[in-house]
């Protein structure tokens, strides 16, 4: 592989890594600046998915001239797959627990559809009739 091609690949890889590190910094700033749990979760998911995928792409490109085999590429793909599958699940569960235990600021929510549904269900249970909306 020629030296020029290796240099181009290295530049692409380092730009990917730089973007990933920048997303980590953005998440850190968002953790400090944002007011409540849900918006912090919004900013914290950026380096966990997009940042990590960029970093994995960067590692893969950087490893191309050295050694590219099934084990390395498969490990990178597995890391990306696990992260993409598990981060939404963990975020959903954390947000749900935060909502149910009252750890979010309700004055920052523009529209709270879950509260509307819970209210409808509670009225339906109290009145002993079938609910208007499925809760």
């Amino acid at each position, binding site marked *: 592989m020629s030296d020029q091609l290796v240099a181009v690949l290295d530049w692409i890889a380092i730009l990917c890594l730089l973007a990933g590190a920048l997303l980590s910094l953005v998440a850190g700033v968002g*953790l400090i600046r944002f007011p409540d749990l849900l918006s912090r979760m919004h900013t914290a998911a950026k*380096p966990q998915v997009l940042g*990590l995928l960029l970093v994995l792409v*960067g*590692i893969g490109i950087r490893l191309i001239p050295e050694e590219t085999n099934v084990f390395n590429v498969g*490990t990178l793909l597995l890391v990306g797959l696990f992260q993409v599958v598990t981060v939404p*699940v963990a975020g959903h569960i954390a947000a749900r627990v935060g909502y149910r235990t009252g*750890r979010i600021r309700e004055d920052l929510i523009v529209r709270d559809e879950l509260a509307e549904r819970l209210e409808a269900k509670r009225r339906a249970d109290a009145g002993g009739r079938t609910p208007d909306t499925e809760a």
Partner: protein
Amino acid sequence: MNVLWITIGLLLAAAVLLGVIRMVIGPSILDRALSVDVLLASTLTGIGAYAAFHRDPTVLPTLLVLSLLGFIGSISIAKFVARRPEEHVATPTEPVDPSPEEGRSS
């Protein structure tokens, strides 16, 4: 090009510092768990930058382990919080949800 590698390190250091600050001052345990997740993502990025800088694929299984560990950690903290719903709510601006089905349904 060395400048860019150093820049990556500095960005990650700043991100970890901000995450630690949020972990210290975070009002609830879920905020702390969230900042631990951000720290873990920064760690993954840092180990990845190490592997890319040295062209060294031997640390790649560590990335695999860390990505699964972050998932298990945040899930277990969330479940631990869900079992104790009347724990302290530190900031005075947070309203306490009076709905009767809270806390027990997850």
